Structures are given as structure tokens and as C-alpha cells.
């Protein structure tokens, strides 16, 4: 598995890479270009935020790179694996073994306990759970003592922490988080974001997060800005202010154009 790459931060090796990615919906007059020749790489052990106004294609980019959506042309890789051309079954296997997901709406199974939700990807794969690693993940997200609770008995922040733990527990090569704080109050959101940052710094995880919240983006090591399906800018070591500042320029540009 990919444990050897877990601590390979800042070595410049890409955990996921898109090259000349195009995504087009519809045909003729209803043709919409969601991604227009996007090339981007997400480094191992790096926390990247993808930002952009609504309709900029940020979610589409994430879906294409996570093997949830098919690309029209170009290439998307996870580690050494080319996603384009893979069959549904192979894509499913890839997502199961190499990718972790955190969704805006938590998306936990209400019938399973917190612990069962966390180990679900490994149970599906029929893989043995690494007990020590699981304990560490659970401790990091602060869920000890609530593992036998069902999602309905947990607060939104706790549910999202279960979702984070689920994403981490199988030691994926990369975690994609789609607006992970979108349904949370600011305090719970801050906890989740700190936790994601810690998982990158302390556990060497690679995280790519789509967000429209500048404060959320400021937790990342790097922010990639998308507009009209193109990558238009990026910031390293962002702060909430610098991100907001950059976003305002989109708005201004959007209004003038």
C-alpha cells in the first residue's frame, strides 16, 4: 500500500495530477464547458484548497480527479494510475483503495455505529483494519467514547468528524473533501479544518478540499483558484484576508466583463 509515501511531504511528488483536462456537458447550443484544459498537480503531504465562484468548475474538477465523473478529454492520475479509460469496476476499486471522501452532508449510514461507519471502506474491501492506526485516527478526531453511537445520536460536527475518520482510516493516497464545513457552524467547522490540517502535518496525509469559504481555504498550504473552468491563479501559505482579497478581484472582474 501507499504507506511509504505518507511522509513524502514537500518532495514534489504529485499524489494526483490533471493534464489538459476538459469536461463538456451537452451539445450544440446547450453545450457548456465546465473544465477547459485544466492542468494541475496536488503534491503528496500537501493540503490544497480549490476555490472559485459558483459555476467555476471547482466541484467538477474534484469529481473528475476522484473518479466520480468521466472526463471529456485529457488525463487524470491518482499516484501512477491513469483514471481515463478505466472501467466502472476498476474505478470503484480505485476509489475504495486509494481515495478518501468527505462530503458536505456527512453521508454516513444511519444504520451503522460511528466505528462501523469509519471502517466501512475497509469492510467493503474485506481488508483487515490496522488497529493501532485506527486508534490513532479516532483519538485525533476526538471520537473516543462515541464509537458505538449511531449518526442520529451525534451532532453535525461529530458526524463530520466520523466522516473524516472514515476517509483517513484506510490510509488513502489522497482525500477529497467537498465543502466539508458547508453544513457546520463556525466552531465545528474550525475543528474539522484544524483536524484536516493536522492530518496533513502530523500524519502526512494528502488533502484536496473544495470550498467557497476564504476562512476554510486559509487552513490550506496552497489555494488554487478556478474561474470559468480554467485555473486562473494560486496562492501559497494563504491567509483568510489574502484569499478574500483574491476573490474580490474575481468579483470585480466578473462585474466589469
Amino acid at each position, binding site marked *: 500500500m501507499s504507506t511509504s509515501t505518507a511522509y513524502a511531504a514537500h518532495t514534489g511528488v504529485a499524489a494526483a495530477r490533471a493534464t489538459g483536462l476538459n469536461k463538456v456537458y451537452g451539445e450544440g447550443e446547450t453545450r457548456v464547458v465546465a473544465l477547459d484544459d485544466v492542468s494541475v498537480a496536488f503534491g503528496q503531504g500537501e493540503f490544497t484548497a480549490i476555490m472559485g465562484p459558483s459555476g467555476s468548475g471547482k466541484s467538477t474538477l474534484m*469529481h473528475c480527479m476522484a473518479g*466520480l*465523473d468521466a472526463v471529456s478529454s485529457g488525463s487524470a492520475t491518482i499516484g501512477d494510475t491513469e483514471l481515463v479509460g478505466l472501467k*466502472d*469496476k476498476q474505478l*470503484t*476499486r480505485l*476509489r*475504495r*483503495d486509494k481515495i*478518501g*471522501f468527505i*462530503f*458536505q*452532508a456527512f*453521508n454516513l*449510514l*444511519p*444504520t*451503522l455505529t460511528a466505528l462501523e461507519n469509519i471502517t*466501512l*471502506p475497509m*469492510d*467493503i*474491501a*474485506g481488508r483487515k483494519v490496522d488497529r493501532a492506526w485506527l486508534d490513532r485516527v479516532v483519538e485525533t478526531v476526538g471520537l473516543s467514547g462515541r464509537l458505538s453511537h449511531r449518526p*442520529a445520536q451525534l451532532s453535525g460536527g461529530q458526524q463530520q468528524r466520523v466522516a473524516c475518520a*472514515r476517509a483517513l482510516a484506510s490510509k488513502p493516497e489522497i482525500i477529497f473533501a467537498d465543502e466539508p464545513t*458547508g*453544513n457546520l457552524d463556525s466552531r465545528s467547522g474550525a475543528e474539522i479544518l484544524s483536524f484536516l490540517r493536522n492530518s496533513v502535518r502530523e500524519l502526512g496525509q494528502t488533502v484536496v478540499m473544495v470550498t467557497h469559504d476564504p476562512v476554510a481555504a486559509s487552513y490550506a498550504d496552497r489555494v488554487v483558484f478556478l474561474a470559468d473552468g480554467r485555473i486562473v491563479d494560486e496562492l501559497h501559505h494563504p491567509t483568510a484576508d489574502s484569499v478574500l482579497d483574491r476573490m474580490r478581484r474575481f468579483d470585480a472582474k466578473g462585474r466589469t466583463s
Partner: protein
Amino acid sequence: MYRTALRNVLAHKGRLLMTALAVLLGTAFVAGTLVFSDTMGRAMRNSYSTSFSDVSVLVSATGGDGGGPVDSDAPRGDRAVLTADTVKELAALPGTERARGVVSGFTAVADKKGDLIGKAWSSRGANFVPDASGADPRYPMAEGRGPRAAGEVALNRQAADKAGYHVGDTVRVAGNGAARDAVLTGVFTTDDPQVTSGGTLALMDTATAQQELLEPGRFSSVVLTAKPGTSEAQLLDQARAKAPAEGVELQTGQELKDEQTRMVADSVSGMKTMLLVFAGISLFVGIFIIVNTFTMLIAQRIKELALLRAVGAGRGQVTLSVLVEALAIGVVASVGGLLAGVGIGAGLQSLVHSFDEGMPTGSLVVAPVTVVGTLVVGVLVTVLSALLPAVRASRIPPVAAMSSGEQPTTQRGLVIRNSIGAVLAGAGLGLILAGANGTGSNAQHLLEFGAPLALIGVFVLLPLLSRPVIALVGPALAGVFGTPGKLARLNAVRNPRRTASTAAALTIGLTLVTALTVIGNSVTSAVTSMVGDTMKADYAVNMANGRQLSTDLTGLVAKADGVKAVSQVDNVWWDIEGVGKDRAIEGYDAAAFDQLIDLTMRSGSTAALGQDQVLVNQDFATKHQLSVGSTLRATAAEGAPVTLTVGGVFEATEGVSPIVAPNRLIEANDPHPLVQQILVKGVDGPTSALKQSIKDATGRNPVMEVRTMQDMVDDFSRIISTMLNLMYGLLGMAVVVAVLGVINTLAMSVFERKREIGMLRAIGLERRGIKRMIRLESVVISLFGAVIGVLLGCFLAWSALRILASELKGLTTVIPYGSVLLFLGLAALVGMVAALWPARRAARMDILSSIKTD
């Protein structure tokens, strides 16, 4: 408001499809039953009334063969009240146009192989009454001529064709006496309904018919046709004055027609009631589906309904809008059901006709009551089933419109429901147990009252039962099928009410099917062991029509080749002191007894029969304090006193009467015992050569049945299995509805859980895994319903058998494990099939659109 409701119906037509189908099937069953029975009733009435067209007054001998188209099996009367003189006197009445003396009775006709044509109960003979031209208007000859002398016979067209006889052939015919050969002089057609419905009618000249079927000079009835201007009532009065005062019955043609109409109505209404019961079961099963559908639809539309409330709709309006939806579905489905039902009625008629060409046919009768009844039943069932969900919908608070997308899983407490269920089930089971330990009609009432109570109680308790029962298979599911198996089990118990009402549909069907199967199987095996345990004889000879055997037959059989031992079985009902008259004494030939009957003796020996002593069974001996050497005083039929000395006591068995006597003793005191069976032991066991030699020795009489014990058991179990198959067929409809219910629940569950399914796909569950998860959930729910049904069915059958056992010794509950396993297997298959479409849909769901937050 109501436009919203109708829009909702259209918007959800896919999801309402199963509900509409369920209602449609149920109502189609109802409409089909009504159309079919009305049509059959009219066709039968039409066909029967033609047979009375020339009857103004019928004078029939009571206690003899009435000559009417229905009864033909009544025993021979003692008094010959209708003679040629009577016919002459009646013909001389001023109002009589024609008088016809009718001779009628059982007559068997053999086919070319010597076997009976048709069935014994519909084999009849009658007299041919030629007029001046030599023809009989009642039986117009299609070929040849009518019989004029002894040794001549005419046959109805269907019977002749069935056996392949042509005019001039020699036909073997048997009335009450020995079989004889006759020349077929003619083939005729008749509209006599008993003949057209597959019966055999052999015509003889009057003298021969009297000789063979009654007694010389005697008639079974006289048919009078009134002169023009004389009413039936007038002729009746005239005839009453002339007819013998006793032993006859006079009826006008109208009375006969009315009686016939009533009998047709009775027989049709019996069939109709039975079919309607099964239609009712299908509709009842449909109720669960409707309730489920509306409950789920409302759960899915909480926000929408709350919005209606928020913008000012009252509670009543919300309830009404749901009911209007139900009404729309009910109307559409019932109309569809009505049309389908008319089709079913037509189909059933031609099906019945194709099985039995003699069944009368006629144009379809769609009575107004059928139309109204079907529509009312369909609409009422739909609307009433939706009532509870509709009222619940009105309780949705307006604020629910503002809540987040996550639907709160409101699990209303099951405490009240469980308490009610426990009380009902407890009371029902209590009554059944009380009944099972009692006897007679009292016990039967307890069972009849307790069974539905227990059923309803168990249905109410199904949600409670679902968790523990399904938990039993949990480890196996997770072990064999991994995560999909585990998720399937959890999903199955996730909403106990929904699971319960889905499974209930199958539970009903399986309860009935299992109960009937267990009862049938138990009775069959009781009969088998009864015959097998005591009977050592190879063949039993009896009359196919259940009549008495002529006593000289025993001697003829004894002389047949290959026969080792023979005994006729005498039956007499003597008045025994302290016992009464209703105990049959069974007589056997003392010398042959040990070779034919196997009794386990408790004391004494069967050799006592040789000394004109009797044997009694243990139960009888205990009851009347008898032992070897005791005596019983009895009065024989002719008033002669007889002393019976007990020579042995045997273990009770249902195959042999409690009192066994030697034939010599019986016949010495009663010259006319009832003989219905002759038992035969062959030198080489039951060989076909022995069977043939017995047949030859007895004059190749087509009425004579020569059967092995196994044949008798087989004949019996064939009756049972035919009945069971009929029940299975009728319950099949309920099972189809149940399958629709499972499909419905799964499809809606898949829709509700689409985000979960999308997430599972995203984090790596393959399409195959999703399919497997849905299929297993379906199988688990189906099996849950089936297991409860099988258990309930076995229990009900056990209690019913306990009650029956008081009348049939040796009847114990024998569970056919093979059949039960087959039922469970079929239930699992039903689950698999029902899940095909929902599982496919779930597996094909687009991941992105399913996990999208709204």
C-alpha cells in the same frame, strides 16, 4: 388544493404503479369471480330449464329413483307404487295430453377395455319409449334406431364417441345386476344437462330397463304433459286425485324449474363465495401495500406538505389532498380491475369449457351489481387504506418546511401497538390451545374464533418480531455476503413497520398454504397408515358407485385363478344391549381372516372367530368392561336375539370396526347384511393377472372396482392433492400481490436511500455489491414473512388436527418438511425476483446526482 393532489398522482405515477396494480389485481379477481359465476349460473339455468320443457307435472316415486336429472344414487325403494296401471290412469286424466312412464337408474357402460366410461355418479340408464313411428321425441336418434328388445341398447353421442363405439358394436352394460352384452342399435343426442355435462346415458326398451334398473312393471316417475288450455296447477290437482296416496311426490314443471334454479343458484353461490374469499385475501394483502406506499410517499414529501401548511392550508385540507390522490388511484385501478375482471370471467369460462366440454356456456353476464360492487370495493379499499397515512400527513408541522434536507427518522413508539398485538395474539393463541385440547363443535368454535384473532395479533406484532427474527440470520448474512449482507440486514430492520407490512402480505399467503398442506399431508398419512397397518389383502373389490355387492360375487371371486383367500365384509347394525344400534359389526370369513387382516391381539386370538365368537378392540372393551369370555346381548335386524361371546381383544385401529364377527354368525341371524367390499389375497400377491382373473370371474362388470390397498390410498391422496392444488392456485393471486408489495417497498426504499447508495458507491462499493445488498434485503424481508407464516400455519394446522383427531383415530400432525422447505425456498425466490428491478435501478444510479445535497 385538489389540483395539487392530482398533479402529485401524475408526478409520482411510477411510484404509484405498484399500488395501482395491487388494487387492480384484487378488484379484477372480484369482478372476474362475479362475472364468471353469473355467466355460469345463467348458462346452467338455461340448460337445465330446457330439460323440463315438456313436463307439466312430474309424479315421482319417493325413496326410489326419481328420474329427475339430479339424483340417481338413492337406494332401491321397497314399494313399487308406480306401475303401468298408474301410467294408464294418469294418461286418462282429462287434462293429460301425454303421459310417459320413466324408468331411470344407475347403469354402467364399459369401454372397449372393460373400464367404466365416465364417472360412476353420472352413469345412468333409462327407458326408450317409441311412439307410433318408432321414435322417441325425447331422445332423437342421430344414427341407427332405438332399442326395441332385450339385448339392445342406445348410447348418447359423447359416451359412444369417447369409447369409440359405432352402431352394431357389442357393448357391455351393467345395471344393478350382473353385467351383460348388448348390441348398440343407435346413437342419440339429448339436451339433458346431466348427459351434456359429461355423463353417460344408456337407453333400453322399457321392459329391459325395468328388469335391470328397478323391478318388472315398475316406473321411477311419470311425466305428464298438459293439454292446451289445462294449467299445470289444474293437472296437478287431477293427478293428485288419481295418484297413489303414499310414496309419491307430485311437482309441477314450474316447481321443478324453480327448484332447479334454486339448486343452480346454491351451487354457483357456493363457488362464488369461495372465490370471493380468495379475492378478499388478495385485496387484504393489497391493503398493506397501499398503506405502505402512502406512508412512504408522505415521508418523502414532508417538506412539500409542510409548505402547504405554511402557506395556509388547514389540516383537513392536507388530509383531503392525500385522500383525493388515493381516490384517483382507486378509481383508475378499479376501472382497470373491472375490465380485467370481465376478461378473467371470459377466460375462466372457456378454461372450464376446455376441461369439460359438457359445461354449458353462454354470453358473458356483467351485472350492474358487478360493476358497482367492483368499483366501490376498489375505491373504498384504496381510500380507507390511505386514511391513516393521510391523517398522519396532516400532523406534519408547518415548520418542517424550513428544516434541513436531512429527514428526521421519526420512529414513533411501538409500545401501544405491541401491547394491542400481545393482547390479541395472546387471546387468540389461548383460544386455539383451549380448542386443541377440547373436542367436538365447541372446540371447533374456539378455533374458528381464535385463529383470526391470533393472525391479526401476530400481524400487529410483526414489527416487534422483525428485529429478533432477522437478527437470527444476521451472522450468516454478514459471514457469507460480507458488508452488503450486513447492510441488507440492517436495512431490513431499519423501519420495522415498513418491513412488517411488506412481509405481512407473504405471511398471510404462507400461513394459509402451510396450514392446508400440513392438514392435507397429515390426513393422507393417517389414511395410509390406517390401511397399511391392518390390511394384508392384496385386492379389495367394490362397486364404483358405492352400492351393495351382490352376495354371489364372493363365490365367483373365490373361484378365480390365483386366489388364495377371500372374504366379503358384512356390515350389520344390531341393537346391542348397553351399546345401542349405531356401532357397526363387521363380519369376515373366519377361515380367511388371518390372511386378510392383521390385528395386534391383546388377549385371546383370532381363531375365536372360528368358534362363532367375536373380537372387540381395546377401547371398546375398556369402555364396556369386556374381556375374553364376556358376553353381549344383541337383537338382530329381524328381531332375533343373539348372544355375542368375546373371544379376543385387539389393539384399536381405524381400519377395522370395534366389533368383528364371523360372517357365519352374522348371516345366521341376518340374511341381508350390507356388503360393500370383498377382500382378496392372491397366491402371488397383487399381480395384474390376479386382477384380470377377478374381473373375468365377476363378469367383467364395468362398475366393479378391483383395487390394491395402494390404489385406494393413491385415489385418496389424489383427491387431497387436487384440492390443495386448487387452493395453491387461488392463493397464487395473493402471492402475486405480495410480490408487488415487495417490489414497491424496495423501489421506494432505494429512492429514499439514494444518497446512501451514492456514498457507498463513492467510497468503493461496486455495482454488484449494491445489487447484492438490495437483493438480500428483499430476501430477508420475504423470508421473515414466510417463516412467520409457516410457523403460524403449522400451529393452526396442529390445532385443527387435534380437533379432527377425535373423529379420525390415528390422526397426528405430520409436517411435510420437504414442502415447508420448498415454500421457504420459493419465498426466497420471490424476494430475489421482486428485487430484480429495484436492485438494477439502485446499481445504475448516478453517483454524483445521488450524493448531491439539495
